[in-house]
């Protein structure tokens, strides 16, 4: 990535100011929502205005304004909705984490505010370091191998097992989930590979061309087996199937992908106790309410408690659900903000998905198109499997809710995804008037 930094950033051209005005307006609204929510959460818990509302206000407004100015400078023509949606999700998540505070062990809010700053820094850095996304395609194999290495990193002695999944790496004082970054690398690899291969695959299917899908499948199953990370393996697999399908326009690949995943799932169910436990807890959590079903049952009670409008911020007991601050932050929002709040979260993700896919449709070259599809799928599908898991629509897989859950790696990687999407959006808006919709 650093190799591209020497190129000058593309300067904004005509009609580039208007989307930023829209963005600024949305960010101002969201700042009001987040600061009010922060104050209300404290009122709800202790009937007093939080003492740190001033510093919090300054910190939030500062970050929001800073990132907006950065977009003005480095991607002035980019989509105006994506960043405000991310800030809304991040802000609501932060208020929830701060409100959970001591209930889930304390100290997380301070860390999360630092991670938010780091995420925003990563967002700005990505905009600066990647002036043209297309240039990343030349590091295709580096990215592909790098992605798989990152995915496998926790298997080394530096890996740490937490709650049954070995997805963490600990180097000195720094703990992170390399899988979160592997997803981005793999999306870039898939997009660039498929641009070269898609004509071949489209016309006639050869075993040789199917090797990547085999490799991706093997990698995701390998992750599932060795790290017990159901969520990431599902996500990477879905990413590849979707990108393959969009690239080749062959529905066959969807069927093939689903069949392979089902086969892998059946084998895993029979071989691995933890997969069987997840499935059992999904089908009938009340069969074992104190053990396998405990988390999902508590989440159900929590969301039912919220009802339509919620108990009010600070007035529920969302910490009754284990890991409410990360995997189960959606149920915490459901309890205190009710169906109204969870619906708002759903809508925010749908807007992100809609904006991402619109960027994909507007893109003129296949690489940009495929990459936008892949990045959007990463956000939209990951949000779906964790929210669906929490409401028992699909089996529970421990992944974070993008931008909302507590966690540094996830926050940073999601902001990088967002920056790449905005960079793509900026490029197409800036270049399209002069290139009249065709490739240069």
């Amino acid at each position, binding site marked *: 990535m650093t190799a591209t930094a020497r190129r000058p950033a593309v300067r904004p051209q005509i009609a580039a100011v208007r989307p930023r005005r829209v963005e600024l307006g949305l960010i101002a609204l969201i700042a009001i929502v987040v600061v009010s929510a922060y104050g209300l959460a404290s009122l709800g818990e202790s009937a007093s205005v939080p003492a740190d509302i001033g510093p919090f206000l300054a910190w939030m407004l500062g970050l929001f304004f800073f990132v907006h100015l950065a977009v003005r400078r480095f991607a002035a023509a980019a989509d105006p909705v994506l960043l405000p949606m991310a800030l809304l999700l991040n802000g609501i998540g932060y208020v929830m984490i701060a409100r959970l505070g001591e209930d889930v062990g304390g100290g997380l809010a301070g860390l999360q505010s630092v991670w938010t700053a780091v995420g925003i820094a990563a967002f700005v850095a990505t905009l600066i370091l990647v002036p043209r996304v297309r240039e990343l395609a030349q590091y295709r194999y580096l990215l592909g191998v790098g992605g798989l290495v990152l995915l496998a990193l926790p298997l080394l002695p530096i890996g740490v097992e937490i709650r049954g999944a070995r997805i963490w790496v600990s180097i000195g004082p720094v703990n992170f989930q390399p899988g979160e970054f592997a997803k981005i690398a793999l999306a870039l690899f898939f997009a660039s590979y498929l641009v070269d291969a898609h004509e071949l695959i489209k016309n006639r299917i050869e075993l040789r061309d199917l090797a990547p899908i085999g490799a991706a499948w093997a990698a995701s199953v390998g992750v599932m087996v060795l790290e017990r990370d159901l969520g990431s393996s599902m996500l990477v697999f879905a990413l590849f199937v979707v990108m393959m399908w*969009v690239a080749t*326009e062959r529905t066959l690949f969807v069927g093939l992908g689903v069949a392979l995943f089902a086969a892998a799932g059946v084998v895993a169910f029979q071989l691995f106790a933890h997969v069987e436990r997840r499935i059992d807890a999904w089908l009938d959590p009340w069969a074992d309410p104190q053990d396998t079903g405990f988390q999902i049952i508590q989440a159900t009670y929590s969301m*039912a*408690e919220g009802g339509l409008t919620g108990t009010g911020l600070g007035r529920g007991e969302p910490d009754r659900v284990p890991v409410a601050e990360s995997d189960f932050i959606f149920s915490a929002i459901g309890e205190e903000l*009710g169906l109204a709040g969870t*619906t708002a979260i*759903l809508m925010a993700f749908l807007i992100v998905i809609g904006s991402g*896919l619109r960027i*994909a449709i507007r893109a003129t070259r296949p690489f940009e198109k495929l990459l936008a599809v892949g990045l959007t799928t990463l956000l939209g599908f990951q949000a779906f499997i964790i*929210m669906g898991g929490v409401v028992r629509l699909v089996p529970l897989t421990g992944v974070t809710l993008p931008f909302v859950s507590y966690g540094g790696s996830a926050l940073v990687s999601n902001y990088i995804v967002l920056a790449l999407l905005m960079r793509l959006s900026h490029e197409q808006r800036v270049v399209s008037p002069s290139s009249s919709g065709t490739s240069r």
Partner: protein
Amino acid sequence: MNRRIRNLGAAFIVMYAVLFAQLNRVQFVQADDYKTHEGNVRPQLRAFGQERGDIVTADGVVAAFSVPVEAGEIEFRRDYPTGDRYAHIVGYQSFNQGAFGLERQYNDQLAGARLDQQFDSLKDLFVDRDTTGTVVMTLRDDIQQAAAAALGERNGSVVAVDPRTGEVLAMWTYPSFDPNLLSGLDGPAVNAAYQTLLNDPENPLLAKSFREVFFPGSTFKVVTAASALESGDITLTEPVWPDSSGYEPLPAGSLIRNFGGSTCGGDLMLALQRSCNATFAEIGAEWLGPDAMIRTAENFGFNADPVIDLPDAARSQFPTDYGAYIADLDAYQPEGSPPLINGDTPIHENSAILAQAAIGQNDVKATPLQMAIVAAAIANDGLMMRPHVVAEVQSADGDVYDTVEPSLWRVAMSPGVASELQRAMVNVAENGTAGGMQVGGLTVGGKTGTAQLGTTPASSHAWVVGFAGPPGMPAEIAVAVLVEAQPGASEQTGGTVAAPIAQAVFEAAFAASGN
């Protein structure tokens, strides 16, 4: 590729739509099921994490209040300073055993959970105000204490109501239990105490005053007398039944004897005063017939769901199946004799059951509360008020949120019949078996009952029902007293055992007003 991207967008919309549907199911459609789901401890933790209002008697004695404790998520527990005295009404709030009685019935008001309690005005959004509600009972502690003391350690119940309003003034059952045993925070100890209470053969957890039915015996004769007066064929003085030692039912059945093998008869006034089984059995079976008896009993609230503001009240019963119609009474008269005034009274296959039911035997069963409101309806000119134990709910500042207004439950009889019956019952108290309930300076009416349960060994429930008030004024209190059959007390009668308890209750009720 754009077509595929649009397809992908559609797929995402479908996925999120299904997610939205499932969210609606969890948070709206089935939310109430989950909230009350077995194993969901959220309601209990919420209940024990906040202060609740007091439950107090009408004369201001606190029967339940919250005590702050520090035990993890439990911040308050309930204390019942009156011990077992209101256990069956106030109930308990137990972490292990759930809530019961008023603690359950008025949970929202005690916890301050209702909207009008939460938001008195807009400023309440910003101040931490005590929103708990105080439940004020209609029961008076002086009467309740007198009832408990007079019954002593004999199994039984005492129920006193204000006939004019339906307010329950006292409701006591012995044995009772100490709700403090169940409101503690030592889980195993609470469970053990609960098991002990559950396994006690005398069942102290059961509020027999309103949740258990008994043979009412001769106290039921006031209902038969009401039906007789309603029929128009019978007055307090006409006709006069000749003395007899028993009644032999038509068309067939075993002889119904008078109490203690005595011989009695006379007009209705005298038959009630003597509690004459033969006369009332004949009135029920030969003068009134099944239809009139069932109608009157049901006007008094038998065979209906009880209406008290407490959970799990029992239904009082009067039998309704007397077999097929056989003939009118005339068919059983000797050939050539003049027609009887009650000659078209229908005789059924099982009229013998009706004869027994008319004296409160066979399948007639009533709660002590039911018999108290029977006496109250007579005292209140035939109007049976809806009995209730809660007078109002107050805010922490003493403002009244809810008042329970007196309301009519049913019209038991006409005012004329009621006034005749009042006279007859005053006569019973003055000259008959209910003399033991007289209180100087008051007009007292009553009717005793001794429901025989068997002969080996002989045992019986002793009953009394009645009312009392200042002379010339409407009665201010009506009671029912039941002393259950005791081993080794075969000879107890309503007059000797139950009437003095009623007397003690009347004395306590009027002591405060100086009568």
